[in-house]
């Protein structure tokens, strides 16, 4: 019986190898303007996708 279902996610440990291009949005500036939540930003690196 399958008791654990793993949802597909970006592996953060692997992203240490191909991440860090710095192209993504830098702050909350184009949206809420009063708090920064990084998790809801998009990765803008074409290579890591």
């Amino acid at each position, binding site marked *: *019986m399958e008791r654990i279902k793993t949802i597909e996610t970006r592996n953060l440990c692997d992203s*240490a190898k191909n991440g860090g291009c710095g192209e993504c949005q830098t702050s909350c500036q184009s949206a809420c303007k*009063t708090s*920064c*939540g990084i998790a809801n930003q998009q990765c803008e690196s074409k290579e890591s996708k």
Partner: protein
Amino acid sequence: MIHQYKQGGYNIVLDICSGSVHVVDEVAYDIIALFENNSREDVLRIAGEKYPEISAEELAECYDQVLELKQAGKLFAEDSFEPMAGELKQKTAGVVKALCLHIAHTCNLNCEYCFASQGKYHGERAVMSFEVGKRALDFLIENSGSRRNLEVDFFGGEPLMNFQVVKDLVAYARSVEQQKGKIFRFTLTTNGILVDDDVIEWANRECSNVVLSLDGRKEIHDRYRVDYAGNGSWEKIVPKFQKFVEARGGKDYYMRGTFTHANPDFLNDIQQMLDLGFTELSMEPVVCADDDPSALTEEDLPIIMEQYEKLAEKMLEHDKLGKPFTFYHYMIDLTGGPCIYKRISGCGSGTEYMAVTPWGDLYPCHQFVGEERFRLGDIWEGVTNTNIQKEFANCNVYAHPECRDCWARLYCSGGCAANAYHATGNVTGVYEYGCKLFKKRMECAIMVAVARTRGE
């Protein structure tokens, strides 16, 4: 580190350092909770006592599944990222890629809760000249290195009180961007009072995003968002915003509201936005001093938490009705989100992102404008206050001692430096109230993402 919670009929287990998300049944939920601090025998014994109807063989199978996930690095993954914490900001040191242009330190509304003190940022009223704005754009181009996409926000006060300069600056940017190898993405934040056909046509052509301030219900909106005669602005702006959004033809926008002590039941305001036909929504907790009457209180907290949960349920209901809507803080792309470098380095305020005052001073972000100690320099000389810039460059998730044991640290990345400073006097502090809200929002966002992934 893991984080477990139950919401929306799901038992969710987050593995913080790998970013894995697991949906599990009750048995696995309990076994995972016991796994790290108990021997295999103890875990199986405790689980056997709780679930007598399940065979020992089945429980052992579940335990082994957990063990396999651990061995695959998808449960209980270690945080090995600290040595990389400063890397992204080091790599991009000196590169500026986004500016917030304070086009007008003046406003045609007199909102009591305004973090920018009615647009004046605790200073004199002022508007940015074309010359200052042009120099700011040149400063951005000159300091953007190999970055191609440059973001510029027109902010205030109310930027449309200086609309001609805004238009002229965009025209200038467009005239040089190709030759400089850059692409400008403009955002306009407006309270709507001066929105007209000219503004709509211009913004829909030039702005990749517009942020439209609306607090939701008329009585809530008009409580704070009033003109200098004390008249509410809801009736005036709502039809303009409806026209504006319709004309955007699918281009990005946010209806951006603020909730305060007056409306911790902000879901009613979100419903009002939906009823008005808006689907791209943001509703932010007020940012103000603790003793301000609009400040959120401890008594508001359970109400807000419940509202966030109900909002998640509402999103899923709307999905089923074929009328989906977006809530800014619930946007999470589990497969395409930020890499670990971004997650540990946090907000780019003071390094890649700066705010420019009407007279050309540079600040780490729009929320620090008016705090003289944080003045970084100006658009002619660049950053001269390198000590302050270093504070921001070193402000990564590991710089906040309180974040070390927090499951949400790779989702918030240490949080907002301005919130931290205003709550604790230090940019590496934490704004605890905001943390509580953030964690709740992340749980809700992930639950919604899980439900959507499973097509439920």
